[in-house]
């Protein structure tokens, strides 16, 4: 098999045009997922046992089942009921794109809330006590001490989760959202050149993931200048 450079280039261009769909899918998923994750986290750390158990159950359900089945449940399963079809929700649930974002967000929220929880638990107690000793009100304490430290601790694990979501976005092609994998399949149906097209798609995903991990690593670096300074002074 001889690699046809023109065909590869053309394929990359066509797939490149689908990249915005993949990116917007991932972007809206991460945004909605992070908001949901904060909600679940709030329930999880609440002193009420019922709320706490509800959050645990949520995480258990969404982490214990494959994402594909969650997508199909929302896209095909919920749409089966007449009540849903007649309600306002149908405006959202009949759209494959919206269903993909919804199911991805629900799933990533379960994983992200656990990441946030781990980070929250490792905020040093002394920092919080110091804030309280300065007379900070609860809200200021959250905004200036707890949230920034949590964010910094959560970033490495969160970048893994973001990469997972980029990979998961390929599943949207199974419910007819034309992102990179979906377009790759369209091209294959026209050209019958399986290997080349899928390899081009793989290259695009690798590039996206590389940029995301680098970007988040850079953010982490920028967020912790005080930690670097101390390490440097210790070394000297």
């Amino acid at each position, binding site marked *: *098999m001889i690699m046809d450079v023109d065909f590869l280039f053309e394929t990359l261009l066509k797939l490149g045009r689908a990249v915005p769909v993949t990116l917007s899918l991932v972007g809206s998923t991460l945004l909605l997922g992070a908001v949901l994750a904060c909600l679940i986290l709030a329930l999880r750390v609440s002193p009420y046992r019922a709320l706490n158990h509800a959050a645990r159950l949520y995480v*258990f*359900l969404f*982490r*214990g*089942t*494959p*994402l*594909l*089945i*969650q997508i*199909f*449940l929302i896209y*095909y*399963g*919920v*749409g*089966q*009921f007449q009540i849903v079809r007649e309600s306002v929700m149908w405006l959202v649930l009949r759209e494959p794109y919206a269903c993909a974002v919804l199911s991805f967000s629900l799933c990533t929220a379960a994983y992200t809330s656990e990441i946030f929880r781990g980070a929250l638990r490792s905020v040093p107690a002394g920092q919080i006590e110091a804030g309280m000793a300065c007379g900070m009100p609860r809200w200021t304490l959250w905004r200036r001490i707890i949230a920034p430290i949590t964010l910094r601790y959560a970033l490495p694990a969160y970048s893994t989760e973001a*990469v997972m979501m*980029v*990979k*998961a*976005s*390929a*599943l949207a*092609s*199974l419910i007819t959202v034309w992102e990179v*994998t979906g377009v*790759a*399949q369209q091209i*294959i149906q026209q050209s*019958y050149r*399986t*290997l080349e097209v*899928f*390899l081009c*798609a*793989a290259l695009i*995903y*690798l590039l996206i*993931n*590389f940029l995301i991990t680098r970007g988040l690593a850079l953010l982490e670096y920028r967020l912790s200048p005080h930690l670097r300074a101390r390490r440097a002074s210790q070394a000297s």
Partner: protein
Amino acid sequence: MAQAGIVEMLGFGPQGWGQVLLLAAMVTFLLTLAAMAAGAVFGIAIAAAKSSAHRGLRALGEAYTTVFRGIPELLVIYLFYFGGSSLLTSVGRLFGGEGFIGMPPFIVGALAVGLISGAYQAEVYRAAALAVVPGEIEAARAIGMSRSQVWRRVLAPQVLRFALPGLGNVWQLSIKDSALVSVTGLAELMRTSQKAAGSTNEYFLFYIAAAVLYLVMTTFTGRAFSRLEAHTGRSLRRAAR
């Protein structure tokens, strides 16, 4: 619409899909097991390559983990199933065969999920090998153990023990990845629930049923892993306390 009741549809009678679904869950379990075994082979090889003194081998190991953790699982499965099949078909044409030759879905699925799981397992083994106290290896060498003896008696048992929690996570990932093999048409749990849902028009019911079966699988195997951890760690427990 629904002539048969929920109980009949999920039951074991002639109308029921119960038996088929349970069998499909069995296929999913076996597929994950095969993928995990294949992944162990790839994972150990890659972990060895990544910690080797040879620069080329290290780069190879690095490339493997970057690629298989960086591209979508679905794409890996497509690549192996369709790519492999088209390769097989063109080889078949070379020998005068005609028509499309498909790869066996179970083997392709196990291999594809295994390659992905191998990338994650490699990191688990590498971290576990680093966790072995160097003094113990030196002590073993000092009392005259051969290289293979050190491996068998000192390194391997400890690496396995340290790797168990990580392997438990990879196992859960692989169960969920195995659902994607449904795109090759292999009658595992995902594919079978799709078929059942399609032919009865009861999408919600059958996807929920499949989700419950997946939950049962992930929960029970998760328990088994923590049992195993407790068992292999029983000599450590005193020290930890």
